[in-house]
Every structure is written in C-alpha cells, then in structure tokens.
C-alpha cells in the first residue's frame, strides 16, 4: 500500500525541490507550488503509474494554504499524497489535463480557500455565490460564536466549564 520512498524519489528526480517524506497519512511528496503540474505528469507517467486522483483539498495553516492531492495507483496498489504550500496570493497550475477528476475539486478549492488555478477550462464557482465576500475555509473567516447570537433584550451567558456545546 505504501509506495517505496527511494522509487518515488527516482520518479521525481526531474522535479527540482521535490522531497519525499514518510509523514502524516502515509508517504507525502512535498513540492514547490510552481512545480505541481510537473510532479503530476511525472507521477502519472512511467515509473509512477498513479492513475487516479482520489481527492484534492486545502488546509489553511495560518501562513499559507497547504494543498493536498491524494493519488492512487491501481496496478501497484499504492497511494501517495502530493503536498504543496501555496502563499495566499499565489497561483497553482491546474492539473486537470493529467487528472480530470480535479475539475470540480479545483473549483471548490478555489472558492473556499482562495487559491487560483490558471489553466482550468471552466473556472466558475461551484458551491457558493459571488456575494459571499470571503473564503469560508480560511481560518480568518469566522463562524458565528455564542456572543453573535445576542439579540436586544436577550442575555447570552457563557456556559460554565468551557464551550462543550457551542
């Protein structure tokens, strides 16, 4: 199930700045954000044979968006995670030409986390509307807290012993 780190390093030899590590959920290829498309081509091609994009999602780390592409090779029965820190105002090339499964998840990631994917053939919003005004999955986008439910004449008391059921 877990791919061989040295074999992956050989596949990614042409991608400068790529590091293969055993961490997090399994084997992670950490690549610079401007080398993502190159990495995907290498992993989908000979030696990698990762033929399916299982999922794509981003995490706001507080300093950058950490994008994760979860790939699977059916023939070799292996899974690998490609990860890349993307600065808030940066762009990542769309990988739809390698993995068409990224078409919808890139649109979702773009609107929820504010990452742009140049090269996407249909870069519309998927889940939200234009008026939303923020990127909801960024940590800076707050959801309503207890105090926000306050109405005139209604006193909201903080629950004792923490926020067990906010």
């Amino acid at each position, binding site marked *: *199930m877990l791919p061989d780190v040295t074999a992956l390093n050989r596949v990614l030899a042409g991608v400068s700045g790529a590091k293969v590590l055993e961490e*997090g*959920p*399994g084997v992670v290829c950490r690549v610079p954000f401007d080398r993502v498309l190159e990495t995907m081509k290498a992993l989908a091609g000979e030696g990698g044979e990762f*033929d*399916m*994009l*299982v*999922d794509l*999602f981003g*995490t*706001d780390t507080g300093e950058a968006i950490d994008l*994760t592409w*979860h790939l699977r090779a*059916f023939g070799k*029965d292996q899974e690998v995670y490609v990860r890349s820190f993307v600065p808030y105002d940066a762009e990542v090339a769309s990988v739809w030409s390698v*993995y*068409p*499964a990224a*078409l*919808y*998840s890139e649109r979702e990631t773009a609107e929820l986390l504010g990452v742009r994917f140049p090269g996407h053939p*249909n870069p519309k*919003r*998927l*889940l*939200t*509307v234009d008026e939303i005004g923020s990127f*909801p*999955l960024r940590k800076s*986008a707050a*959801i309503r807290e207890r105090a926000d439910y306050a109405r005139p004449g209604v006193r909201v008391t903080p629950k004792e012993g923490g926020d*067990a*059921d*906010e």
Partner: protein
Amino acid sequence: MNDAAERAEEVAADSAVADEVGHVPGGVTAEGELVAPVLPKGLRRVPRGVDEVATEHLVVNMGPQHPSTHGVLHILLELDGEEIIAAEASLGYLHRGIEKLSEHRRYAHIGTLLDRADYLSGIHTETAFAMAVERMLEIEVPEKAWWIRCLLAEVNRIASHLVWLGTFGLDIGAMGPFLYCLRDREQLLDILETVTGARMMFNYVRPGGVLMDLPPETEPMIRKFLSTFDKYMSEYDELLSGNEIFLRRVKGIGIISPETAVAFGLTGASLRGSGFGWDVRKERPYGIYPELDFDIPVGSVGDCWDRYVVRMEEMRWAAKLTTQLLDGMPAGDFTAKVPRVLRPPAGEAYAAVESPRGELGVHVISDGSDKPYRLKIRPPALYNLAVIDEVLPGYKIADAVAIVGSLDIVLGEIDR
C-alpha cells in the same frame, strides 16, 4: 406630404421593384455586401418550411426543481435539437458548510453533522469519521462494535439502494417500483430506528464503538425482513428488469469506459459497472469484512444497464452479508473505553469506507485540541457526477435523465 402618403408611396415603389425582378433571394454578395431579399407580393418571408438540420443551440436549465434531479441538482444542457452538445452540473443549492462547522465542534459532536452530508447512508459517513479518529487516538475497537457497525452498514446499504432503485425507475417513467421500494425501505428504517433511535440521522457510530448495544428485538426484525427480501427482489425484477421499455431506455445508454471512470475518479457501483472491480471493502479492508464471504459484482460495458445490474446484485449480497453478520454476532462490549473529551494528538488520518455511492473518505487533521483543525469529506457522488461533462454529450435529452439516475447521486453529500 403627410406620413401616410409617404408610406404608401414607398410601398408602391417596393412592389414595383418586386414586380420587375420577381423573387430575389437575399444573401451576401461576393464583395461581402448584404442584399435584402426581395419577395413576391404579399409575402413577408420565403416559405422554406421547417429546417430540421441547422437548428440553433439552446441552453436548457434542468433543475433545480425538476422531479428527476434527485433533490436540488441543476444541470445546464446545451442542446442542438434534442441532442446534448455540452453539459455541466451547477451545484451548491445544499451547501451548508459542514466542513467549516466541523472545525468548530468537538469530536463527539461531529457525527450529527456528518449524518446530514449523505442523508441516505449516515452509518457509512459516521463509520469513516470514527475510523479516522480511532487511528489518530490508537483506540482498539471491540470486535462486537465492528460487527454491529458492519451489520447496520449493510442494512443501510439496502435502504439506500432501494431509494436509488425507486427514483431510477421514476426517472425512466416507471411509477410502480418507487412505491414498492419505499414500502420495503420503511421496514429497514424501522430496524434502524429500533437500534439507533433515529430513522435517518443516526449519530450512532461513535469513535471507539457504537452508542448502544443491539436491542434484543433487532434480530427477529432483520430476519423477518430477510425472509421476504427475495420475494421483494423478484418483484422489482418483474417490474423493471424484464420491462421492455425500461431495457430500451438503459441498454447501451451512458457508456462509461474504464479509462473515463478512472480519469474522473469514479468509485463504487459506477466504477464497477464499467468493469473495474475495485471495492474498498476488498482492497482496503476495514472492520470484519475480511472475515465475511462476499463477491463484488462487476459490469462489462459500462452503460446504465450495467450500473443497474451491479447495484441490484449489491443489494442481494448485502442481504447475504446481513445474514452472515447476524449469525456470527459475538458477545462482548459494544464500545471501548474512550475519554469524555477526545483530544487526538497532532497529526492526521484518512479513513475510507465503501458507502452505497462509492469510496467515502474522511480526512481529519488534528492540532492536538479537542476540535479538528481540518475535516475533509471525500464525496464519492461529486466525483461520480463530474463524469456527466464527458458522458452526456452525444446523447438525447431524455437519456440525460437516465444517465444521471444511474449514477446514484445524493446532493447532500455533493454540496456538503
């Protein structure tokens, strides 16, 4: 001269021209000049009949409130006559921000949100989340808890497939099967209600095990359902599988090649219908599935009929699995000892289960606090739906309904 006289003069002059030259078809000259057509007297246009070939493309909004769109799916179709030129799903009508809300809930409170993601098979989503949390906390789940989880998962699978079967029949135009399917699903929901206390929003599978032990009346209830299930299946077969109209509507329609299926990340019955036998229960075994005896039905062509057959077979296998699970139900604890407030160490885990729609994964990232730092649901139905951009063009508009129905989508999970 007043306006009326002027106008009469103009008309007379036009008629004179027409009289002289007869009919002059309009068009563009070799020099690129536009020539207005000159018509015989009394005609406003050349009576050329209906042009059946060169029709204008039309963009049709199918949904979000069309009876065959399974909830609130909205598909944009570009049509040339009846033929689909391009298709696109417009989503988000059911987006509730479950992933964002999960970042503000304790681990014990997230199950209730996840039930509302895939509202037809809550047990599966809960199990995937519980597995991810258990991996991070390294909790040993008691054997009986896994037997209960798998038992309810298979019961839930039949219930979910029955909704799919009924609505698929409705899509094609068969009203009858829907009534039969929901009649039988009601029994399954009664079973689930007896065990979990809720018909659809269970919140029953918790990290470490399940909420409660099986009540004693569960087994007779399930056995009673299973004793009649074969009869039900033959009823569905009589109503749909042998129906000539139904066969004409699904055979050879919506063919998805294995390459297309893998490229778009299809999983579940939609992938297996294309002849690609990949099932999470077999390839990434979890729970007690390795101990059970079951087969993975696989299609050959990848059309709507194959996906239909695969799902029907899956229901039969789910019934057999349920029997095995009832027979082998061990004694013991239904939950491990877990702390009241779960605080997984900083790290992350991905856990996937085979939901009725495919590989349903939950990716949890923890920063060591009592709430997840990030929770991502891998929605199988979203990836299954994405394939319509590729598959629909070339088929007729009526086939779009059949193809989308055969993919078995649940919008709650797609939009989250």
